[in-house]
């Protein structure tokens, strides 16, 4: 960021809700089905059809509001009128001046709080494919519309303009994504469009000045592009102001390949949406019993889950920065319950965390389905030296692929007979004999040289040995 400038960033995140059916009809809410197969009179906007609100969508919206510390209020739906081929009725049903969730906040991992102005329900549009040389809207010959996505439930989460750096914006999107996954409201798949981010960016000389003119950036499909687009846009605005030119209020499109934002339209093109109360739907007035039940059903949120693991590591005296990163990984992937279960069963905290954040995380969906019992058994075998780290990783991969099993049986089938202490001491002795200088330095107290002997032993045993057992043997020989 150029010196002497402050960014002001607010984010609007559209989240597709993981319901079985659409917001206002019983059509399946499925991504990737054959075009125009999940359609009915309602989501196709046929004459005479009427919307009826999906209870699960409301409860997921309330869960999001609860997780974001919002006030859950009586709400209504409006029609936002505009013509566009992917908008089946040529109006969108959305919450306008009476949204279900208002006035919340989200705390970033570093403790910074971002205000949440509102989180409201609305329906998604159909999907347009542009046919022509470029495949983009510009220069297309014609377009094709698939209404499978029409009417899919969305919650739009609007932050306050509280963020001051692109790093905060990235952290906000990551944290929000984790929260949305934790509530069960979203699969968090930004690449499939189930989370879509728009950023409002402006710059000013200091926080004491009024807000500068803002631009809205659309098409941010990853945490990385959120950061890149904001940095680009801020530099663009700063360059304009420093050149004595005004920033014009615009909606801009982020071109990931070019690394640039490009103007879509300016404020003068602002559309007159003619919002009015949707006469086909009635107000939603959740009572305390209902909001309470939704809150009670909500599991722990990511921040609390990270704190829970950090506490366990601290108790074990194993807390470090790199392990905190592993904590974030396992919580983001929803694998923290596995870690907690294993630690409770007596497996060393650091080992559990490492296996989960590295190996289990390679296939998070399989890991989330994994029964904790065989996982605990496996890690216990590794901790006891019955299996080497390498063997343990192989068995874990097998467990994940098969969706469970008996680790001892898998190890035996793989030929992972634990080396006897006798044969191990012979191999260690051979390694000591082959590296006399290193042995002398090790005996003099250079502990890290143990790695040399572990490497030699592993090589000789093709990974069958257990590193901890090797160290134990070295220490025995050293006396």
């Amino acid at each position: 960021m150029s010196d002497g400038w402050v960014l002001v960033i607010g984010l609007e995140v559209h989240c597709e809700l993981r319901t079985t059916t659409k917001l206002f009809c019983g059509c399946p809410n499925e991504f990737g089905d054959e075009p125009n197969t999940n359609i009915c009179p309602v989501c196709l906007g046929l004459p005479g059809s009427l919307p009826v609100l999906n209870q699960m969508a409301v409860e997921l919206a309330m869960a999001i509001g609860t997780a974001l510390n919002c006030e859950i209020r009586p709400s209504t739906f409006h029609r936002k009128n505009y013509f566009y081929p992917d908008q089946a009725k040529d109006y969108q049903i959305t919450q306008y001046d009476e949204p279900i969730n208002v006035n919340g906040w989200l705390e970033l991992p570093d403790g910074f709080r971002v205000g949440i102005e509102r989180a409201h329900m609305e329906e998604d549009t159909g999907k347009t494919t542009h046919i022509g040389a470029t495949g983009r809207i510009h220069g297309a010959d014609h377009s094709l519309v698939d209404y499978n996505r029409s009417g899919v439930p969305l919650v739009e989460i609007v932050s306050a303009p509280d963020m001051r750096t692109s790093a905060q914006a990235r952290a906000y999107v990551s944290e929000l994504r984790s929260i949305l996954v934790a509530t069960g409201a979203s699969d968090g798949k930004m690449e499939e469009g189930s989370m879509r981010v728009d950023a409002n960016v402006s710059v000013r000389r200091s926080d004491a000045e009024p807000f500068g003119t803002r631009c809205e950036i659309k098409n941010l499909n990853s945490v990385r592009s959120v950061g890149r687009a904001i940095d680009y846009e801020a530099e663009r605005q700063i360059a304009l102001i420093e050149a004595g030119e005004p920033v014009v209020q615009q909606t801009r499109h982020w071109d990931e390949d070019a690394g640039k934002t490009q103007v879509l339209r300016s404020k003068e093109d602002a559309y007159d949406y003619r919002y009015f109360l949707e006469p086909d739907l009635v107000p939603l007035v959740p009572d305390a019993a209902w909001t309470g039940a939704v809150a009670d059903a909500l599991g722990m949120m990511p921040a609390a889950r990270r704190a829970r693991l950090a506490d366990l590591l601290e108790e074990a005296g194993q807390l470090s920065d790199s392990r905190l990163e592993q904590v974030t990984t396992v919580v983001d992937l929803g694998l923290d319950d596995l870690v907690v279960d294993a630690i409770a069963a007596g497996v060393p905290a650091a080992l559990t965390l490492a296996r989960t954040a590295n190996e289990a995380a390679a296939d998070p969906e399989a890991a989330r389905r994994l029964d904790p019992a065989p996982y605990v058994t496996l890690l216990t075998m590794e901790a006891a030296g019955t299996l080497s780290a390498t063997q343990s990783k192989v068995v874990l991969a097998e467990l994940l692929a098969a969706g469970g099993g008996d680790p001892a049986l898998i190890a035996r089938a793989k030929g992972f007979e634990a080396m006897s202490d006798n044969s191990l001491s012979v191999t260690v002795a051979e390694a000591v004999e082959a590296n006399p200088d290193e042995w002398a330095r090790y005996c003099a107290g250079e502990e890290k040289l143990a790695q040399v002997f572990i490497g030699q032993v592993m090589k000789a045993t093709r990974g069958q040995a257990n590193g901890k057992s090797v160290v134990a043997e070295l220490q025995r020989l050293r006396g």
Partner: protein
Amino acid sequence: MAGARRLTRDDVAHVASLARLHLTDEELELFTGQLAEVLDHAADLAQLDLTDVPLTAHAMAVTNVLRPDTPAPTLDREEVLAQAPSVEDHRFRVPRILGEAP
């Protein structure tokens, strides 16, 4: 009060464009006069002081009408597409679109 100003041809042309209607000059002239007459009649409402009167958008006060999140039958794709003016690749075909959605 907005209603005090009489409806102009430009107002009608703007509204027609919002509503995706093309009007000939004759239609514009005719509709401007006719709509202005209706709005003049509505001016009696604007005279009323109803500042504290709530808005009634629904005739009957009903709340919390919800349906369970269970799938219902979808329409047969071929039956639906048979009704469409233009179809390609099982999708609704439209002429090129000049701009992104507003």
